[in-house]
């Protein structure tokens, strides 16, 4: 089973291997600034028009096989071979800068949103408006917006997506007679009741430092709306704004109902408390289902959208990280690469992928949903009904800002919510420097 972490990492079976490989990736990334060194991989220099090279980060078995099936189907249809160059997921991500500057493959796996726009703005990707003329009809407007660079051109073909929500077990809710909360007050009341009933209201593990980013996202766009959230992520709005303070006040109100000792716990361990019915709810992406190995447990899993905080915004925003493909700056066989991207944007390609990997849903609105599981159907409805889609803090903002400032800052907040004012001042000061550095 693959592990999708919210930052889109198809990560490894255990935190251990993951961190170990991260270290190895770190060693390998010593070639930063020496593009030639790290641009290993794409060796074929001869531009065979019948071959497209593709840089893949799908190093885990399930997605790797799913992608291979797509490429096989593409070859049958077009006669073009896809030469896949798979790298370990984290290594791929960490080397992306030097990879794209060297001799990248024609097409490569990447994420929608700010992270895509960043490389588009750096001229490390080729616009693909021609592809979108053919596939545009397959996607809802929200997906179209996610696939555009800052210059309004298309740079990205989305393949699949998955939502973040509050997960719970139907049997637990039934047993205690709980109802799904739709407003903030109901959520707090439910948490209180769960605590009385001897449950951990909200499971939480922030050892990997990214889960807290997801909690912040939910509370912030419910409190202040999508527009402010985007401005804040883009570094335009101030972190010392009273609105941000309000978000943290809400969070501080909810924090006592979160699982203790979160900073030392991995998300997998936190998910296990939901599996064992010790916790009532868990805010995470649909990949939490991977921890429900037992079929009976998996069928018992359900989710609901994060409750409304301000009626002006309701539940109109859904956090739905989206993965897909981009075209590198100077593809060797561009015509074939464009054909591949056109194929990847079709409902058929998505159907092949989803058959192999049921933890996500198709990005296209035309994909066949008849084979979806209950959870997938619900996820699909949630995403297609959303007015706004966000990606996740580390995809919606600068990765240097989120990884070096926000991750430690939110860990600190989770542990000690009292010092929030000085924390926000510190975030704002650091943000200014980072966003000023171009």
């Amino acid at each position, binding site marked *: 089973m693959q592990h999708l972490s919210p930052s889109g990492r198809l990560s490894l079976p255990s935190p251990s291997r993951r961190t170990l490989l991260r270290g190895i990736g770190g060693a390998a990334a010593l070639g930063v600034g020496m593009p030639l060194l790290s641009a290993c991989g794409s060796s074929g220099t001869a531009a065979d028009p019948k071959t497209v090279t593709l840089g893949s980060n799908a190093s885990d078995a399930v997605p790797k096989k799913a992608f291979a099936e797509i490429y096989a189907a593409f070859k049958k249809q077009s006669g073009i071979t896809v030469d896949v160059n798979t790298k370990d997921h984290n290594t791929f*991500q960490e080397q992306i800068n030097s990879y794209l500057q060297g001799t990248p493959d024609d097409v490569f796996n990447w994420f929608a949103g700010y992270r895509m726009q960043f490389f588009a703005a750096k001229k490390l990707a080729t616009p693909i408006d021609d592809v979108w003329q053919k596939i545009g009809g397959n996607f809802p407007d929200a997906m179209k917006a996610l696939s555009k660079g800052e210059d309004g051109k298309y740079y990205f073909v989305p393949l699949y997506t998955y939502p973040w929500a509050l997960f719970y077990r139907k049997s637990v809710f039934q047993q205690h007679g709980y109802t799904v909360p739709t407003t903030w007050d109901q959520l707090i009341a439910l948490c209180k009741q769960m605590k009385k009933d001897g449950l951990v209201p909200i499971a939480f593990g922030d050892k990997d430092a990214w889960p807290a980013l997801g909690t912040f996202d939910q509370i912030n766009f419910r409190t202040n709306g999508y527009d402010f959230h985007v401005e804040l992520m883009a570094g335009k709005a101030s972190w010392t704004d009273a609105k941000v303070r309000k978000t943290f006040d809400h969070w501080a109100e909810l924090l006592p109902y979160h699982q203790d000792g979160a900073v030392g716990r991995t998300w997998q361990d936190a998910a296990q408390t939901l599996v064992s019915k010790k916790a009532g709810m868990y805010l995470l992406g649909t990949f939490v289902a991977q921890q429900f190995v037992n079929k009976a447990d998996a069928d018992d899993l359900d989710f609901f959208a994060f409750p409304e905080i301000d009626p002006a915004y309701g539940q109109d925003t859904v956090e739905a990280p989206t993965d897909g493909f981009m075209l590198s700056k100077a593809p060797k066989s561009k015509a074939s690469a464009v054909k591949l991207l056109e194929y990847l944007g079709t409902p058929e390609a998505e159907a092949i992928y989803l058959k192999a990997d049921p933890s996500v849903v198709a990005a296209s609105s035309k994909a066949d949903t008849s084979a979806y599981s209950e959870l997938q159907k619900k996820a699909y409805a949630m995403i297609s009904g959303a007015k706004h889609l966000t990606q996740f803090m580390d995809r919606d903002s600068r990765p240097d800002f989120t990884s070096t400032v926000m991750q430690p800052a939110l860990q600190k907040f989770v542990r000690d919510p009292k010092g929030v004012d000085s924390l926000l001042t510190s975030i704002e000061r650091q943000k200014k420097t980072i966003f000023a550095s*171009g």
Partner: protein
Amino acid sequence: MTVDTTNSPEAAAVPPPGTASPDKRAVQGHRRLLTRRDRFTLALMAGLPTILHVALVWVTALASIALAFTTWDGIGFDSIKWVGLDNFRELFTNNPQFWPAVQHNVIWFVVLILVPTPMGLFLALQLDKKIRFSRVYQTAFFLPVVVSLAVTGFVWQLVYNPDTGLINSIIGANKPGHYIDWIGDPHLNLWAVLIAASWRHTGYMMILYLAGLKSVDPALREASALDGANEWQTFRNVVFPTLRPTNTVVLVVTIIEALRAFDLVFVFNKGAQGTELLSILVTNNIIGESSRIGYGSAIAVVLLVISLAVIIPYLIATFRKERRA
């Protein structure tokens, strides 16, 4: 350096006395002691390491010093921007992780010197007494040193895991309200990880001291025993002073260990609050997508300055001693 290169080739070119034949050619060839091949070999042997050394040590070190005064996202050399001392100003005044990191590196050193080093010396003294199974003990104590630090970190992380870890399971501290968060709590996690580091460092120190003890002349001990000294007096006044060279090595090794501490913590909790270290800050800023190469270099320069501040006085002292000798 220059003295070396001119002298040693000649010395090396003189045929060893055993195999030298009283041939006339040796006299004739006096003008050109070095054949072409010799010179080539020499150039290769001296040149290659020099090139590698310059490229991998000096160029990179100087490049990071230069980059410390710039901002650079790692994309294209034209995006390097000169910012003067901004990185350092930001580091010293705005970075909430920097001063804790410096402090933790210092604590790391102090703890390593105070706990595992005497412990290693103690073990070495016991093992030096040729007790039974001393090989077995040696292996057992030295094993943690052989194991990669990343593995050590992983193993200890299992011990400290708040929910399923060994310690919390035994003392029952894994229930809501009673959690002891060894990995996340900044008052605990540095000490937790230092126990792991000390566990490993003890074995390292033991081996160093054991080697040192082997070189202590048994006659010295005998003499002090004849003079009526007890074991403690012998150790304090005879053995320990003769371990002086070992102590120097131990000190240097421990300083290096404290400054380069990284892998254990990175695996343990990625340097979360309470366990920030300079090396981890460098990595977090430079490697990966964040690519704040200028800023990360500034942290690396601070680390370099600290290392130099420790190493230079040591080198001066050593050279002074050598000159006197």
